[in-house]
């Protein structure tokens, strides 16, 4: 919660700089000229959370903050950063909450291991029952 508030405050502070870069450099609703870069940016924006909306990605949101974040992402991708670098930079600023693709860490390890564990457990369960039946 505190992190989210902090993020909002930071964004409010950042707003004047963003406002200066309005008009031609504003990429909130303008696509990048290079289709490959635009595709990369769109794919990234689909996995970033709009921090002021109810469960929406920034690519799907009409909120001003989402627009600012889209512009930021497109500018960084256009400047040659990779999607992973931009994501890491955003996580650094806003915390894990901002990404729908949770980075592997101590807090998310159980989440990422869960599918493998479920599959192993299921296979073990099914194998045991087949063997018993074959006797």
């Amino acid at each position, binding site marked *: 919660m505190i992190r989210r508030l902090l993020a909002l405050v930071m964004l409010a502070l950042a707003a004047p700089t963003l406002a200066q870069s309005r008009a031609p450099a504003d990429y909130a609703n303008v696509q990048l000229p290079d289709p490959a870069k635009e595709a990369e940016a769109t794919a990234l924006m689909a996995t970033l959370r709009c921090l002021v909306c109810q469960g929406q*990605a920034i690519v*799907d949101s009409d909120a001003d903050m989402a627009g600012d974040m889209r512009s930021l992402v497109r500018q960084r991708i256009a400047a040659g950063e990779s999607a992973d670098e931009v994501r890491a930079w955003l996580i650094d600023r806003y915390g*894990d909450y901002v990404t729908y693709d*949770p980075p592997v860490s101590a807090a998310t390890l159980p*989440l990422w291991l869960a*599918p493998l564990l479920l599959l192993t457990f299921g296979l073990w369960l099914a194998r045991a029952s087949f063997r018993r039946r074959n006797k």
Partner: protein
Amino acid sequence: MIAEAGLVALWLAAALAAMQLMLAALAVSRNDDTLARAARPVAVVQGGLALLAMAALIRVFLQSDMSVALVVANSHSAKPWLYKFAGAWGNHEGSMLLWVTILGVAGGAVALLERRVAERTLTATLGTQAAIALGFYAFLLFSSNPFARLPNPPSDGQGLNPLLQDPGLAFHPPTLYAGYVGLSVAFSFAVGALITRDVGPAFARAMRPWVLTAWVFLTIGITAGSYWAYYELGWGGWWFWDPVENASLMPWLAATALLHSVSVLATRDGLRAWTVMLAVVAFSMSMLGTFLVRSGILTSVHAFAVDPERGTFILILLSLYIGGALALFATRIGVVRAGNTFELVSREGSLVANNLLLSVILGIVLIGTFYPILAAAMGTQLSVGPPFFEKAAGPIALVLVVVMAAGPLLRWRRDTLGALVRRLTWPIVATGIAAVALVVAAGWFNMLPMLGLALAAGLAVASVAPLAGRNLLRTPLFVYGMVVAHLGIAVSLAGMAASTAFTREVLVAKAIGESATVGPYRVTLRGIRPVIGDNWSALEARLDVQRGDGSTRLLAPQSRFFSNPPTTTSESAILTAFDGQLYTVLGQPDGTGRWQLRFWWKPWVTLIWFGGLLIAGGGALSILGHWLRDRRQKKRAIEAAEAAAHREAWAA
């Protein structure tokens, strides 16, 4: 007066549910047939009273009786007829009453119609139904009375959330609840069979129509919900792995696994413990879904009342029913005799694989949905969204598609891999051709959609393969049901993969008279005009849309402003062609006379929902097919008995 009558009916129904539970408990424990016979009519009357209470609530909504608190909070006398009617369940109390009404009516139908299972098992089943209903009656009467009156009635009501004023959404809750409640009947049958240690084919055949019906309703509910999100939210997405969406997907996954294992139990008397377990899981998932959207843990249009007390109540009910059922399962599973045996490569083997993979997907969705809530409770803010679900569940779903193609082509009990590969020749060829054609036509693109499209082609061929070499007129209807449902999965999968891989998006700022190109279409902005609605005003763009040299069509997307509460919504305008949809959205003016416009060309996206309808239609065919066969068998049995009696009479 009508509100009071409704409340009385509700209390009486609750009392009868208590009586039904006691009668059933006594009848089963004493093995008393007289008591058991009394349980059936009680269940029927209980259902009738619940229906009466629901009818009373609908009546006060239609009359706009502003002395009833619920009507004041959720209705308005000037609202269209349909939304007064549907407003009865467009709120917390009313939707819980609808839940318990469908439950009561379903219980009554079981009591009236079911003659296949042993009487004692049926009595235990009705007792379980009554126990579930009793919990919800208590919930309604003690913490969410829908009929409460106001001492000082206001002159008019506060209206209904504008987002819910949509004809599709008016019938969304009844559809989903019918699905949830169907699963509760399956749960009751499973518990009943566990109590009387009677887990066998007769029980499975009695449970199957309920599982199938629930599954058809859930399929329709999910398909319609997905289309609603697609056209209403204005961003062209059809699934976002949102907790509310997941809450409807989880019971569907469990029900899909259950309906496959129940057919193994009904035809081959195998997978007994699994089937019972899945019935418990499926109902748990529908309770969990109800908890997720009703508790206020999630903020959305579904969370009518953010009231922790109500969430706690549902959670207690959930743990009581599920805990009780699991405890019963643990103590009784040892005495459920092992079912018939089979080998790994067999129809049963493929159905075990289906059950396993569906359960793993269900586990992933469950964990992914609750992980952020648990993490937040422990002080860590994180988000789990589409990338996680796609990475974790996507590959498993594709393996499931392969199993689905192979399963119907396998023999029961034992088969060989060689024979299977021979029967799968054409599907494999189709998959290969599709993969090569895709790479040639579109180049190398994303792995998952690519595989999805190729496998969809193979699955489509494999799903009609069971009809090859059969006399089509003598093929039972439920085989057609399976073929159509599996084909529906292939169609839906193709739509998902194609629209994911080939969608074209164009964001432009255009002045009037300028045009842009998206996919095969050329879109020209002709003008912008204001439009006034009942409780909104809007700007509407007029777009001329032309494909090649074809005729020009008009699309009119709107940007709507609601004054109370102040919100802006995008009303998209969609052009449906045979091979996809053109999706247009009007954005803001940029201050220099140009307007923001967003266009998407989504090839084959309509296949997603068309496939969903095929799946539901397949389920309906299957229900009809099993019903017809049961009737025919019964008639044949009667004729055989008559013939035997006739012979005896002549022989004597």
